[in-house]
């Protein structure tokens, strides 16, 4: 008798839980590919194509489907690689290429012929200009992907390293060589 009760009780509970789960999976169903979105969210969105895909979302899609390795995003570096490996539940892999320091594109405006080719190349619409007018790069939108350099027929786009400003300076870790050179021993004497 007792054993029957136990079996019935547990069986009933299991059934109820099953129904709840089935309903929940319908009610809370998420459209799209959540894994792709989550990977896309940890990518730097430079849209540079160094991963071999035409942008961050295509790369995220490829990783999510298991087609691409987790270590292909160059600007993302180790941090992005670790985050992706963590999401995918696969062992981390060494990042092969070192990321270049952050850059910004500058158009030498007096040389620009206004051909609009760079505008078409820019993945984030950071270049403004009209045909036969100077073009210019909106600094705050440029991701430094370098994709606009190649198409320019008169080679008037430079990639310059992002200016370092005091407001964005942060402390380096203790013990790590600080970038700041100490003036202490060589500083001028004061008369």
């Amino acid at each position, binding site marked *: 008798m007792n054993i029957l009760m136990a079996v019935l009780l547990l069986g009933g509970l299991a059934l109820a839980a099953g129904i709840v789960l089935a309903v929940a999976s319908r009610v809370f169903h998420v459209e799209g590919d959540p894994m792709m979105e989550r990977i896309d969210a940890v990518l730097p969105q430079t849209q540079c194509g160094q991963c071999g895909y035409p942008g961050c979302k295509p790369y995220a899609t490829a990783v999510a489907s298991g087609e691409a390795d987790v270590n292909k995003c160059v600007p993302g570096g180790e941090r992005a690689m670790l985050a992706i490996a963590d999401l995918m539940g696969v062992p981390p892999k060494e990042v092969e290429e070192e990321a270049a320091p952050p850059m910004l594109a500058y158009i030498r405006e007096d040389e620009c012929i206004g051909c609009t080719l760079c505008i078409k190349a820019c993945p984030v619409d950071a270049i403004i200009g*009209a045909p036969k007018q100077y073009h210019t790069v909106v600094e705050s939108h440029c991701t430094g992907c370098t994709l606009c350099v190649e198409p320019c027929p008169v080679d008037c786009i430079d990639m310059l390293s992002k200016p370092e400003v005091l407001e964005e300076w942060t402390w380096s870790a*203790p013990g790590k060589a600080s970038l700041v050179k100490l003036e202490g021993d060589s500083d001028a004497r*004061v008369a």
Partner: protein
Amino acid sequence: MPGLLERLGGLFGGGVDLRSLISPGGFPGGVHPAQMKITAASPIVQSPLPPQLILPLKQHIGQICIPIVEVGDHVLRGQKVARSQGYVSAPVHAPTSGTVLAIEEHAVPHPSGMGRQCMIIEPDGLDEADQSMPSLCDYLDEDPAIIRERIRLSGIVGLGGAVFPTFIKMLRDQRHPIETVILNGVECEPFLTCDHRVMLEHGDSVVRGLNVIMHAVAAKGGIIAIEDNKPDAVDAMREAIARAGFEANIEVRVLPTRYPQGGEKQLIQAVTGRQVPAGKLPLHIGVICQNVGTAKAIHDAVCMGKPLTERVVTISGDAVPHPANICARIGTPMPFLLAQCGLRDLSGVRLIHGGPMMGERLPRMNVPMVKSTNGILAMRAESLYSENAQEEPCIRCGHCVEVCPVGLVPNELAWHCRNDQFDRGQEYDLFDCIECGCCSYVCPSHIPLVHYFRYAKGQVAHIEKERAFAELSKARSEARDNRLAREQAERAARRSKVRKSGAAEAAADASDDTEAGTSGAESGEKAS
């Protein structure tokens, strides 16, 4: 033990901090570093005018100022030379009369050693003052809004070192009436004595300044908090209060000496016994805190019409032959001040901006003193602890936990920060750390704990910024993809129409290029 007690206190319901029971004097934790107040008995001396004044256009927390005079202009002492931009900002005034030589980037006192826009002024030696600001002697009859505006226009910021624009705190707000104004005369950092000397020598101005603040925020009471290692300052302030006839509403509170009692939240807890809840401001519990030096500056601005152009600085440290308290113009180069104290040869010397506990090591020496400069310490390289100590593994002694005034667990926190596990660090309340340095001070393994926390805070901010930029770039890239898809669809539609009507296809193709270009430009402009 203290951490445990705090948890227990939490169990008994809000606000009760059992740790304060075992640590008399209010706030938990803290340390007693050697005082080293060598200059306590040295009267304030006035610095001569340097050959050049270097005036950074940002000396406060907030946005940088915009210059309103040009190179070659003649300026007067107290004339506004750069106006504030945005709400959280404080204008900059010419410290003396002279000529604007340049407006350019110059090294400023900052641990990065980087520079920022500065105005270089060559004094003409006449020190002519701009008299345009009338004094508001009868401040009690003035509208508080006028006093607040005067304080804003005078460029006054918190002179204790935080340099937060003072007028922002001086608000009469119906929802948060201020009961008490606390003047911070604690000066708990070793070596520093500038506030001490200000209380001794400018007691009347300090008390008057406190009264101005009380009037501006409609506070009934004022408390001047002083540690018991400065009995002469206690007496001086009591006398000044009596002279001004404010005994009824201003009192001096003597606190047992302990570092970091001068921290805003620690001081409030020590004085009122109440804790400012995490993420809240002192005004939420009806208190505001100002430094005694700030009170004097407020007095000078309101009662004498003098904007903030000078302050008292303690020049000390074991490399300084004649340590002193100097009242100097903002913008005076530090080597010029050190030379007055007999230190001319700066080789092998390390400069610290502020006190030894919270101050920052300056990689560059030719920098000006600024509004936040309460002390300049010149130390011999051999005696700089942080330079000579070797970090060893944590022995889990727990000393750092005992002394942390905020109740953090520095050793665990540092572990996560060292391993770049910033999420875990934030779970351990990284951002509640006030960077007081108590934990590093007591650590027997010489672990630079605060340095790890500064590093981690910077990294978190950096990661946040990158993430925000990535988000923006993602949105822009998606917008572009959508636009391209739309254009392609339109083109296809047009083509089929053209084909149907049998017209020439070439025309449509020729117009494609220009269209893609201009629409790119349009959306770029819109988003910018």
